[in-house]
C-alpha cells in the first residue's frame, strides 16, 4: 500500500504504468516467497529491485513474464497487468507474453549455436522476418543496439558460447531485443561479470532506456543508484519501500531500507 502511495507522489511518473502488480503473493509449495506486493513500473524508466539474498526480488521478477510457470510447485496470487491486460488471465498467451516481456538471466546463457542463430532464433519462431534479408537486418540491428556488432560482425557463424562472459551477456540482451519486446527484465545481469564488462552493460542499459521499459534486479546498490530512476527495496518477501532512486538512497523513509543501504545488513 505504501508502495502505491509513493509512486503516486513522484512527479515524473507517466500517466499509464507499463506493468502494474496489485496484491501479488507467490508460494513455493507451502512456503510464501512473496507477500502482497503492489508496484507499478514506468514505461520510460529503469526500475531497480534491490534487497538481500533470498528476499524474493528474483522470484517477483520472474512472475512478471510468468517464468515461474515452469516450476510446478510455484503458485501466484494477485493481479499483474501489462498495459492493463491481466497476464495471468485467460486471454493472455504465455508464449506471446514472454516475447513482449523479454528476459536476461543472471548467468549468460547463449544457445550453443552460432552468434547469428542466437539472435535470429526469436524472430524466426515468431515469424518476425519475411525473408533472409530481413532476418539479417534484425540480427544486425539487435547486435548494434546491444553494442556487440563491432566485436562480432566478422564472426557471426562462430559459436555464441565461445564469446567472453560480458560479450555473452550482451548477446543475450541482443537476443531479447531481437523479438522487439516492450519490457526487458534483467535478473542480476552483471553478477557474473568483471567490472569492465559490467560498465559496458550499464552503459547499454542507459541507451536502451526509453525504448523499452527495463526492470533490473541487482545486488549491487551502487549499480542501482547509477542506472535506475526508480528503486524498490525488497526484504523477506515484502516490498518495503519503492520510490525515486535518489530519494531511496539519500532519504529513505523506512528504517529497514536505511539499515540496508548503509550496510547494516544484507
Amino acid at each position: 500500500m505504501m508502495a502505491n502511495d509513493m509512486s503516486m507522489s513522484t512527479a515524473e511518473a507517466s500517466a499509464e504504468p507499463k506493468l502494474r502488480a496489485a496484491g501479488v503473493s507467490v508460494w513455493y509449495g507451502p512456503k510464501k516467497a512473496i507477500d502482497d506486493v503492489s508496484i507499478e513500473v514506468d514505461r520510460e524508466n529503469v526500475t531497480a529491485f534491490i534487497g538481500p539474498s533470498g528476499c524474493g526480488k528474483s522470484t517477483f521478477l520472474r512472475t512478471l513474464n510468468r517464468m515461474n510457470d515452469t516450476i510446478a510447485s510455484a503458485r501466484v496470487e494477485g493481479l499483474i497487468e501489462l498495459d492493463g491486460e491481466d497476464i495471468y488471465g485467460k486471454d493472455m498467451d504465455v508464449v506471446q507474453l514472454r516475447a513482449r516481456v523479454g528476459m536476461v538471466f543472471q548467468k549468460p546463457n547463449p544457445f550453443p549455436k552460432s552468434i547469428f542463430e542466437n539472435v535470429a532464433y526469436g524472430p524466426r519462431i515468431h515469424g518476425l522476418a519475411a525473408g533472409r534479408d530481413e532476418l539479417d537486418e534484425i540480427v544486425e540491428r539487435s547486435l548494434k543496439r546491444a553494442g556487440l556488432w563491432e566485436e562480432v560482425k566478422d564472426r557471426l557463424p562462430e559459436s555464441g558460447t565461445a564469446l567472453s562472459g560480458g560479450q555473452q551477456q550482451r548477446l543475450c540482451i541482443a537476443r531479447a531485443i531481437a523479438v522487439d519486446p516492450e519490457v526487458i527484465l534483467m535478473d542480476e545481469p552483471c553478477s557474473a561479470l568483471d567490472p569492465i564488462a559490467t560498465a559496458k552493460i550499464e552503459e547499454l542499459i542507459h541507451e536502451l532506456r526509453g525504448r523499452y521499459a527495463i526492470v533490473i534486479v541487482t545486488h549491487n546498490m551502487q549499480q542501482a543508484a547509477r542506472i535506475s530512476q526508480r528503486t524498490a527495496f525488497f526484504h523477506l518477501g515484502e516490498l518495503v519501500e519503492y520510490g525515486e532512486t535518489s530519494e531511496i538512497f539519500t532519504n529513505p523513509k523506512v528504517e529497514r531500507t536505511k539499515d540496508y543501504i548503509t550496510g547494516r545488513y544484507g
Partner: protein
Amino acid sequence: MSKAPTDWRSNAMSRRLRSRYAREKRFKALGLAAIAVSIGFLAFLLWTMASNGLSGFMETQLKLAIDFPRSSLMIDPAVLRGGNAEQALAGAEIEGAVASAAEAEFGPGGARLISDAGWLRVREGILKNPDIVSGRAEFWIPASGAFDIAAKGEGDPATGALYRRLDQSGQVRHGFNWSFLSGSDATDATAVGIWGAFKGSLLTMLVTIALAFPVGVLSAVYLEEFAPRNRWTEIIEVSINNLAAVPSIIFGLLGLAVFLNFMHLPRSAPLVGGLTLALMTMPVIVIAGRNAIKAVPPSIRDAALGVGASRVQTVFHHVLPLALPGILTGTIIGMARALGETAPLLMIGMRAFIATPPGGITDPATVLPVQVFLWSDEVSRGFVEKTSAAIIVLLAFLMAMNALAIYLRNKFERRW
C-alpha cells in the same frame, strides 16, 4: 584456549604423509591390474576367435575334370543358349554326373571327397558358358568337410595321405570361401553361408531401432519435460526401470504370446524378432534418454522460454539436440545387447533351419547369434570353424554398428 601450533615436520606427520602416498600407489596399481586383466581377456577372446575362425572363411578345392559327352548328362548346348537355361538344367542330373566323375578321377569313394554342394559350381559353370558341355572341362570344386579337415592337418590318416597325394599332383588348391559370405544355412558344413543370418540380423535390427528409438526418445521427453510429477509418473518410472532389468527370455515368451498367438504375425520373421527386441531395448533408451535430458542445463530452457518459445519448441530446438549424444550412447548399449540376444528369438521360432536369405521382414529368417548357437550344436567337425567364423562376422557387425553410432554422437556433440 591456546594450543601448541601444529608441527608439520614431526615424525607422526611424515608417517601419515607416507601412508597416504602408499595408499594412492596401491590404488593406482589395482586400477592398472584391473585394466590389464580385462585387456588380457579381450586379447585371448579375439585370438581364439581369429585362430579358429579365419580358416572358416577359406575352403579347400579339388580339380575335377568332367568329360560331358561321355557322362550321363544329356544336354544340348543349343537349348542352353535359348531363353530358359535354368529350366533345361533343372531336369539334368548334374549331381550324379559330378559324383561319377569324382569316382573316376579320385578312385572308389571319390564322390565323398567333394562337398554336397559341389555340383552347384558345375551348374554355374555351365550356365556361364554352355559350350563346355560339348567337350571336356575342368572345375575347381569345394572339397567335403572330411577332406577339408584333412587338408588342415587334423583329419584321419587315410584321408590325410590322399590329400598329400592329390596336393602333389596339383589337384588341390585353397581359396577364399565366397559362398560363405553369400549363402545361407545348410546341412553340410562346407556349403553353409552367413549371409542369410546376417541379413536376418540386419532386418531385425532395423525393425528394432525403427520402433525402440522413437518410442523410447518420445517417452523420455514426455516423462522428463511434460509429465506432471505425481504418483502415476512415479509408478511409470519404477516400471520402466524394472522393465530394463527383466531377463530377456521373458520378453521372448511375451513375444510368443502376443505377436504370434494373439496377433498371428508370421513365425520366425524379423518383424516379430524386431518387435520383441524393441520391447527389450526401449526401457534402456528411455532411461538413458531421461538422464541425458536431465543433464541439459536448465538455463538453456530458460533462455528459449525467455524469448517466447513454446515448450515443444524449447524441447525440440534446444533440449533434444543437446541431449542427443547421451541418448545415442544409451541406444548403442541397447542395440548392442539386442544384436547379441538369442534367448527371446528362440522363443519366437527364429531357430528354425532357414536355407534361403529372407527377402523381407515377414520372411522366415534367423539371426547371427542364433546361427552361432545352432552351428555350435552341430556334430560335424566342419562346423567348429564355421561357428568361429560366424562369431567373427557377428563381432564385425557389432563394431560397425557401434562405430556408426559413435560417429553420429561425435557429430552432434560438436554443436555444443
